[in-house]
């Protein structure tokens, strides 16, 4: 029984005079790990933000885990976690406090083990203002894991991470897959994506240019293959 985690039809969103997403119709099977590839400015971040209900589409529809993104926004938000370019963090608070704030809105406690999991155990009580970009990424990842979401949207998660961070992320994606969660990952690292992901989607200027199994992803992907 193949259910769809994401189903969109004619999804469109503009910024000023430009269509960031133009008539995007795609499907993401439940439990899969999907790579979202494309050049800078092709609409990857916009698509992820629309699916996370951070943005409303100008036209078109989408069902995320069976819920309409326009009509059942809260239901979608409860089941979806987004790792975005912006960290969603409070500079003045410590790593532990940032997690506690998120946890308090989720109605649960933040397990300290989460910070150890992402390699921030020793820096748990330092203010985020003192963190490097890579450390902030790890903390944002911990925040995503806290949400225990069924659909995890990752926007260029490998950026800013060091090699141990890459391994951490690979491990997290593996765990999410084992747990039965669906992952959609926007990335420039096409080669890595081919290995990790089941399926791939290619965006070009806001349109869906190609979709299919990840290993069949065109080699000359305009996203620029960075061998990693």
């Amino acid at each position, binding site marked *: 029984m193949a259910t769809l985690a994401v189903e969109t039809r*004619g999804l*469109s969103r*503009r910024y*000023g*005079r*430009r*269509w960031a997403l*133009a*008539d995007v119709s795609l499907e993401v099977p439940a439990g899969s790990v999907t790579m979202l590839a494309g050049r800078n400015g092709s609409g990857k971040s916009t698509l992820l933000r629309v699916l996370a209900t951070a943005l409303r589409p100008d*036209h078109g529809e989408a069902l995320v885990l069976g819920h309409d993104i326009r009509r059942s926004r809260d239901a979608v938000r409860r089941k979806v976690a987004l790792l975005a370019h912006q960290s969603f963090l409070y500079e003045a608070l410590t790593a532990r406090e940032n997690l506690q704030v998120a946890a308090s809105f989720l109605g649960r406690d933040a397990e300290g083990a989460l910070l150890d999991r992402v390699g921030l155990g020793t820096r748990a009580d330092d203010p985020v203002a003192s963190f490097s970009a890579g450390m902030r990424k790890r903390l944002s990842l911990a925040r995503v894991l806290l949400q225990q979401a069924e659909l995890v949207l990752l926007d260029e998660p490998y950026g800013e991470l060091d090699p141990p961070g890459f391994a951490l992320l690979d491990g997290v994606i593996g765990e999410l897959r084992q747990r039965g969660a669906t992952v959609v990952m926007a990335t420039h690292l096409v080669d890595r994506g081919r290995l990790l992901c089941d399926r791939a989607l290619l965006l070009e200027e806001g349109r869906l240019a190609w979709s299919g199994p990840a290993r069949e992803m065109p080699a000359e992907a305009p996203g620029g293959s960075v061998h990693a």
Partner: protein
Amino acid sequence: MGNSRWPFVTAGLGLALLVWGSVWGLFYAPREVYMGDVQRIMYVHVPTAWNAMLVLTFAFACAVLSLLRGGWGWDARLEAAVEGGVVLSALLCTQGSIWARPTWGVWWDWDPRLTTTAVLLFAFAGILALRGFVDDPVKRAVWTAVAVVIAYVDVPLVYFSVRWWNSLHQLQSTPETVSRAFHWPLRINAFGVLFLMIGLVELRARLAWQRRAAESAPPLPSGVAVATGRL
């Protein structure tokens, strides 16, 4: 938004009425016994005051509809109505000063109604400034609608607070409270300003509508949708 000529007709009619009423009131109406010719400003001041309140109420209605229904139409009318309200409020304050100077020897007499108008002038001018600094048309529409609702709800509160504040001193008189005017020029002018404002606001709204259409993206190449906008 429509393309018909009715706003021009309405504005033209309003202007004609305004000229008729003003000439009558300012030159031919009977001279007021106690105040003299200065009181004649009432023939312009009272109609301006009525219409200022009317156009700002219309702005409030547009703001509520813009928030509830969306679409560019109500936002365009809102922009026009707020501008109209700012112009009329500025006129009211100017007229008030013109009356106050020869009467009381000061340019501003802190009359509650006029002071409320001054506060409204700043509030709505601020909302126009807000519009100028928001680039995203959708956000601009939602935020200015919210700001107009909030400012409009404040009007009775401002009026009562200023009235109590001023009542400790002698209640200053205004052109309105002083004497009973000769009715006809007043009524003609009231309708004159009303029609003029209706015509001008509609024309200004059309301009805003066209600007919105110009700054929105063209329709999607696949012909999926026309850029009518959403709120």
